[in-house]
């Protein structure tokens, strides 16, 4: 392995580890944001659903549980992928799955951004400021995930046979 390859490999490993940590941080932020939303503000949802849920405490509670479960599951997946990325960067494991999963996440986040844009122009829903914030977060997350995908692909190309350090 020549020096340029080694330098590139270290660069992408560093990027991947950093992106993995950032993705974990964003996952944890999702949980914190949810707690803040429950504690301080009403959940953002369309008026018909809100009208339906507000009539029944049990239904609202069930909805809240579902939301919490959904967010925690997503966060768990984010944390899992983040740790996988870090392991892959440090030559401690991982395989071709990581590039595929991160490619899927890239598409998912692109759809998320598109959805938020469309929701911004939906006259029935309010909260342009929160939409803008959400878009910024989504774009940032997209960049992180894209970097994870690109770095993992490049690492695979540069170092097909990984070695473990002591």
């Amino acid at each position, binding site marked *: 392995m020549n*020096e340029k390859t*080694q*330098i*590139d490999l*270290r*660069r992408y490993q*560093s990027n991947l580890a950093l992106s993995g940590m950032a993705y974990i941080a964003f996952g944890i932020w999702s949980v914190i944001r949810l707690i803040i939303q429950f504690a301080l503000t009403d959940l953002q949802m369309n008026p018909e659903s809100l009208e339906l849920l507000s009539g029944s405490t049990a239904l609202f509670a069930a909805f809240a549980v579902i939301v919490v479960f959904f967010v925690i599951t997503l966060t768990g997946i984010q944390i899992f992928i983040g740790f996988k990325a870090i392991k892959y960067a440090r030559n401690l494991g991982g395989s071709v799955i990581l590039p595929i999963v991160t490619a899927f996440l890239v598409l998912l986040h692109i759809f998320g951004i598109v959805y938020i844009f469309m929701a911004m122009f939906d006259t029935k829903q309010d909260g342009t400021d929160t939409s803008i914030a959400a878009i910024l977060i989504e774009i940032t997350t997209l960049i992180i995930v894209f970097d994870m995908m690109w770095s993992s692909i490049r690492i695979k190309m540069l170092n097909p046979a990984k070695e473990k*350090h*002591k």
Partner: protein
Amino acid sequence: MNIDFHYYATYCAALLAGYSHEQSMEICYSAQFVDLCSKTLLSKLKAPTNAATTQLQTELADTRTDIIGLQDITRIWSSFHFLPYDLYAVKPNRTRAYMRKYRLICKPNSDLLVKTVNLARGGSLQHIGIAMHILADTWAHAYFAGTPSLVINNMSTEVLEVVTDEEGNETEQRVKFKHTPGSPDDIENRVYTNTIYQGSETSIMNLGHGRAGHLPDYSFIRYTYLPAWDDYRKILKDNPAEYYKAFTQMVYALKTIREGSEEFRKDIYDEEATAPYKERIKRIISTRQISASQDWKEFGEELSGCTVDDFDINKYQDEYINASADDKDKTFLGRFIKGALAQKGMVTDSIVKSGNPLAGMIRFKISKLKGALHV
């Protein structure tokens, strides 16, 4: 470097360069004193505090890191411990703020080193000692800068020591770092102390080789690491080889100063004078120990036939305190202070002249007395 090299090894080098025992003692005392001459000590002596050649940990803990504080820190550390290699270095696609720090990176055989040694020619033995300290540190402290900077002085957490077994096979063993400065390094298990990671660019933790701990100051160790400034390139720091070069270059520098026939030039090493003792010197340098003081001391005493006193920081303080105002410059510490001021002025002026405001914004003129500074 530590006292083993700055004091005892410098003594040996001075002897090999032809200085007498007494002269060598003055030179090596001054070389070691550079690591101890802080503002606190100078205040105690009622000496000019701008002659400080180091900062204590307690002083650093209290130091401001705004531009004024940073300039003060940079003046001291760049002038005496991390002599910049190339004040006009070029690196593409970097901001001006980054380049100001990049240009302060220390490496051996710089133009400033030539100026440092030649500035000491015709000066006092104390000034010569200061120059030798700086020369030695350019080897040990290479690739670090004497200014607090995360983007320059940080390094990867993965530091690998290159270990050679009895059969000559080399392997890399990971070094572990801890952040307990009170406890000694465990060199057998490769556990060393370094400064804690601080994300702030100008944190004191990112000054000099703090992030590498004492690794640069151990003569026996060879290790690889990734410095923050080198774009993912790995550096092999071969301390045994570099310490030997530092020693032979010191002998050459001291000879040029003593004989006065030619000016000091970089990349020249006096292998001839050290040849009879090469194996012994390499053995001292390569022995895995925290301090090689005893080995160097024994070597020095064999060379001179005289006893090498242990370093005593209080040795010359009474002489300075009790001297009259007119006679202070003639005392041992007075001559040291003059040499320190001259050196600091020269380096600071060079940095300012290069357009780098990190060491100050005013140019100094060095008077003929080599100590009085005129703005």
